[in-house]
C-alpha cells in the first residue's frame, strides 16, 4: 500500500496541501505585483515585475502542470515552443527598433 502511495505521488506530483501552499505563494506574489502600481519602486520597478512574472509562470508550469514531476520530454517540448516564440518575436520587435 505504501509503495502504491509513493508511486502515485511521484507520478502525479504533490499533495492537496502542497497545491494550496503554491496557490498562496502565487496569490502573495500577485498582491506584490499589484502593489508596484501604487508604490514607487524606483529603478527596481521593471526588474521586480519581470522577476515576479517569471516566478509565477515557472511555479504554475512546474507544480500545477506537473512538469517538475513528469517526463523531461514534456519539459523540452513546451520550453522549445516558448523559447522559439520569445526568440522569433524578439527578433521581429528588434526590426521595428522596439528596444531602441
Amino acid at each position, binding site marked *: 500500500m505504501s509503495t502504491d502511495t509513493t508511486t502515485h505521488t511521484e507520478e502525479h506530483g504533490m499533495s492537496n496541501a502542497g497545491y494550496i501552499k503554491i*496557490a498562496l505563494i502565487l496569490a502573495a506574489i500577485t498582491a506584490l505585483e499589484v502593489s508596484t502600481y501604487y508604490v514607487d519602486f524606483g529603478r527596481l520597478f521593471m526588474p521586480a515585475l519581470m522577476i515576479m*512574472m517569471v516566478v*509565477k509562470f515557472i511555479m504554475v*508550469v512546474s507544480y500545477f502542470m506537473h512538469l517538475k514531476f513528469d517526463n523531461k520530454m514534456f519539459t523540452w517540448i513546451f520550453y522549445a515552443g516558448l523559447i522559439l516564440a520569445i526568440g*522569433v518575436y524578439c527578433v521581429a520587435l528588434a526590426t521595428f527598433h522596439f528596444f531602441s
Partner: protein
Amino acid sequence: MSADHAVASHDAHVTSTGLSNVKVGMWLFLGSECLLFGGLISTYMLYRGRVGTGPTPMQVFDIPFTSVSSFVLLMSSLTMVLGVSAAHKGDDRNTYLWVAVTALLGATFVGGQVYEFTAFYNEGMGFSTSLFTSSFYVLTGFHGVHVTVGIIMLMSTLGIMKRSKVPGSKSETVEMLGLYWHFVDIVWIIIFTLIYLIPV
C-alpha cells in the same frame, strides 16, 4: 494495488516513446500556442503607444478590478489542479466538485472581461479607435475566447463523466483539460504584467 490502478494499467496503451500520445499531443499544442500568443503580445507591445486621438492605456485601465479578475483566474488553477488530483485518485465526487468550481471561476473571469470591454467602449475605446485599442482587444479577446472554450470543455467533460461514469483510468482526460486551463492561466500572468501593470 487498488481497482482503479489495476484498470489504469490494463487500459494503458503501449507507445514507441513510452509516453501517452495524447499527452505528447497536448504539450505540442501548448508549445504552438506560445507562438500564437507571442505574436499577439508582440503586436500589442509594438502598438501600445500608438493611441492617436483615442484614450491611452493608463486612462482606461481599472487596475483594482483587473487585479481581482487575475486573482479569480489564479484560484481557478488551484481548483483545477485539485480536480485533476481527485481524478487521479478515482474520487469522482471531488472531481465533479472541483471541475464545476473551476468552470464557475472561469465564467466569473469572462464576465469580468465582458464588463471591462463594455466600460472601455463606453469611454470611447472602440475596436478601431487606434492601433493600441485594436491590438489590445485582439490580444485580450483571444485570451477570453480561450477561457470560454475551456469552460465549454469543462462543462462538457462534467456531462460526459456524469453519463458514462468515467473511472480513475480515464483521469487523463481531466489531466489534459487541466493542462489547457493552466496554460490559459499562465498566458494571463504574462498579459496582466506586460499589458496592465507596465505603464506606457
